[in-house]
């Protein structure tokens, strides 16, 4: 692990340029395949990456600082803007943290609805990942096919939340409103069609010789390294670690639902791809079960306070967001505003593996590896 802790400063890299005939290439922040405003400084020997460093912070908005000056209810929408791809998950994490602090029990229907929405959101996030990852590697058609399905989900979101991207309907203590008429039918019909679509993608990619040669053996990270770096989510599972917070520390009604955790073997890009594809299937399974079990009743806890003032103390809660473990650490001083709120963004932690994964590969592989990490800059920079 020495090479991970010994991260070279960017200025160091640039200074070394004149000493050897190695080339420094700055990728981003306006590069199409860095998924936002990530800047990766690559040290190249020919086309081989010998060292790299990430330069982040281009999208920093100071969310954590803002939170200290807002009421608890006012904070919630900010979370939709951190990981804007998985807004629902982020919202869930926040409200659950507060509910945990308040020790609030929420109605079962709200729990099931939340699970359905969060899993739908996982699907949409993974579909977007698949689309962009494939696009980075050059498979354009997958991009549009995946967007087609994502569009369906976004339509459901639009109907439910009134927004497509920054979806927000979770309140502390339940949900603002119940599901609209036909919600179940729409989700059901989507889930019925979805496996066929997945098969379509896999037909294009799974056994494609070019896809294999671009992904198999690229960006390998061992399970030990993955744990040491702190990877979570599909990158961790791709390395063969069977770890999912939904199973390990079940929240909401996940303990009532049946699903499997897919995990890989070699920890390469292809494994992570397979893991995510399988996760999509499992999400669909969860959604179908949840739809079946969806009880009637209230969606808002009756005991929910009007002004949220969690007891003095420190609280940490984490959920399995599509990207990994999303955690919130809250320090409450008993007032209506948090004393300190810290977000543990999965993308930020996962990005730390980039250096280890990419060194020794070619420049073109860096693109594939960034894609496989599935990072969102809004979350990294906060």
């Amino acid at each position, binding site marked *: 692990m020495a090479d991970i802790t010994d991260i070279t400063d960017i200025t160091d890299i640039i200074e070394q340029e004149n000493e050897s005939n190695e080339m420094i290439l700055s990728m981003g922040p306006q*590069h*199409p*395949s860095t998924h936002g405003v990530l800047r990766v400084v690559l040290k190249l020997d020919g*086309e*081989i990456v010998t060292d790299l460093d990430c330069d982040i912070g281009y999208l920093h908005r100071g969310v954590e600082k803002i939170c200290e000056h807002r009421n608890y209810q006012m904070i919630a929408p900010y979370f939709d803007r951190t990981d804007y791809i998985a807004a629902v998950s982020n919202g869930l994490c926040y409200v659950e943290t507060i509910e945990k602090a308040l020790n609030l029990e929420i109605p079962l229907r709200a729990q099931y609805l939340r699970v359905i929405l969060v899993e739908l959101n996982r699907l949409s996030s993974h579909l977007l990942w698949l689309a962009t990852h*494939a*696009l*980075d*590697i*050059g*498979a*354009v*058609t997958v991009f*549009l*096919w995946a967007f*087609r399905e994502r569009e369906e989900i976004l339509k459901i979101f639009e109907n439910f939340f009134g927004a497509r991207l920054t979806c927000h309907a979770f309140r502390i203590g339940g949900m603002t409103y119940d599901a609209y008429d036909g919600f179940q039918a729409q989700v059901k019909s989507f889930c019925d069609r979805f496996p066929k679509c997945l098969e379509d993608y896999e037909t*294009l*990619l*799974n*056994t*494609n010789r*070019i*896809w294999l*040669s*671009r992904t*198999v*053996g*690229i960006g*390998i990270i061992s399970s030990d390294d993955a744990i040491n770096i702190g990877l979570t989510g599909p990158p961790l599972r791709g390395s063969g670690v*069977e770890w999912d917070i939904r199973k390990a520390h079940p929240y909401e009604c996940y303990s009532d639902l049946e699903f*499997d*955790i*897919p*995990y*890989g*073997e*070699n920890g*390469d890009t*292809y*494994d992570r791809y*397979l*893991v995510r*594809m*399988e996760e999509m299937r499992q999400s669909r399974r969860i959604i179908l079960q949840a739809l079946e079990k969806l009880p009637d009743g209230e969606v808002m806890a009756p005991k929910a306070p009007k002004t949220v003032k969690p007891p003095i103390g420190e609280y940490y809660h984490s959920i399995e967001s599509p990207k990994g473990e999303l955690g919130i650490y809250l320090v409450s001083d008993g007032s209506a505003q948090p004393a300190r709120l810290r977000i543990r963004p999965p993308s930020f932690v996962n990005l730390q593996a980039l250096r280890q994964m990419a060194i*020794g*590969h*070619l*420049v*073109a*592989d860096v*693109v594939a590896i960034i894609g496989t990490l599935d990072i969102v800059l809004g979350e990294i920079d906060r």
Partner: protein
Amino acid sequence: MYIYLLSAPIWFSKLPILKDYLDPMVLDYLVWPLVQIGLLLFVVLTLIAYLTLAERKISAWIQVRIGPNRVGPQGLLQPLADGIKLLIKEDLIPLKADKGIFIVAPIIAMVAALVSLAVIPWGAAWATISNIDVGLLFILAVSSFGVLGIILGGWASNSKYALLGALRSAAQMVSYEVPMGLALIGALMFTKTLALQDMVINQENLHIWNVLFQPLGFLIYLISGIAETNRAPFDLPEAESELVAGYHTEYSGFRFSLFFIAEYASMLIISAIAVTVFLGGWYLPGLSYILIPGSTLFVLASIGVFAFKTLVLLYVFFWLRWSLPRYRYDQLMELAWKWMIPASLANILLTATILVIAKEFGLIESQGNFLSISTAGYIFLIGTAFIITVPLTWIILGQINARSRDFNLREVEPLPMNRAKKNS
């Protein structure tokens, strides 16, 4: 000089105005070629414009979209709009660019692509502008010019991305030129000429398409041709996820459109050559029984046949582009040097051996510039091509390349397909 040119068809020399004022010789060797050239340029450029539309439409269909549909009925006027947009766009020349070369480069690319059109047999008889002795060589030579346009364009832009794209592109094109040329040699053994029109006539005489004799050659040619035109899955020079846009990053407006036209024109030419050499050109079995050979109608029909075959191949180009991911650069080079070139060499060797054997057994006979093949000869040649040449090359190359070192710097074992195990 004018031995390369073919005289005008009779109906042309009987056109009233021309006949009155111009000598028949002038008509044949100056006016008619100019007419042909003008017509061809018009048709080809229009075709290229509509190829862009076709590509967009086809990609849209593949991706379950509608595609351009706003300009004109079904978006049919879209190319026109695009053209006008490109033409009236501001013509940017980067400050630090090498101005002269920056201007000349797209012209070179364009010219290289268009000059080849002169020798392609678009149809029977008068539909060809010229049928020179070294037609195929000429096309290969001229298309090697295209590299210059790209490399100079990239260099003149004075931008790292453009230069890198240009170098990649040039290396790729130079590499794939080799198997492309070599793949044709196998077919040349059957046609016994380099003149393209004669090749078609040869295939007509044998009543067969060369692709049956040369399945491997055709495959190699097609793959190399796709790579040669920098199309997906070999569109490394334009890999936007890596290089933004490749060698023409700094180009815009009219000059960009020249590059664009050159790319499509070279696609067209690659397809046309494939059709001519491997797919019988304008020859369609049975056509000469329906129409009188040499008649105007026949010529028009042959043009139609040629166009149809070419368009089918172009469709394959589009199809591949929208269904395959992109190769990595080293994998692309590996494909060229470890697979394509040895395979094409093996193809040449095996084809020559098979021909010698066939000649030894009296299955084929050489009559001047033509081959005459007996029925058993057809079966033998086609059978050996499919049963021996293709699998043998495949096996041998597979054996050899399985042992050679991949450039993947981290070695991994080949993996089984479905490794995402479920937690049971």
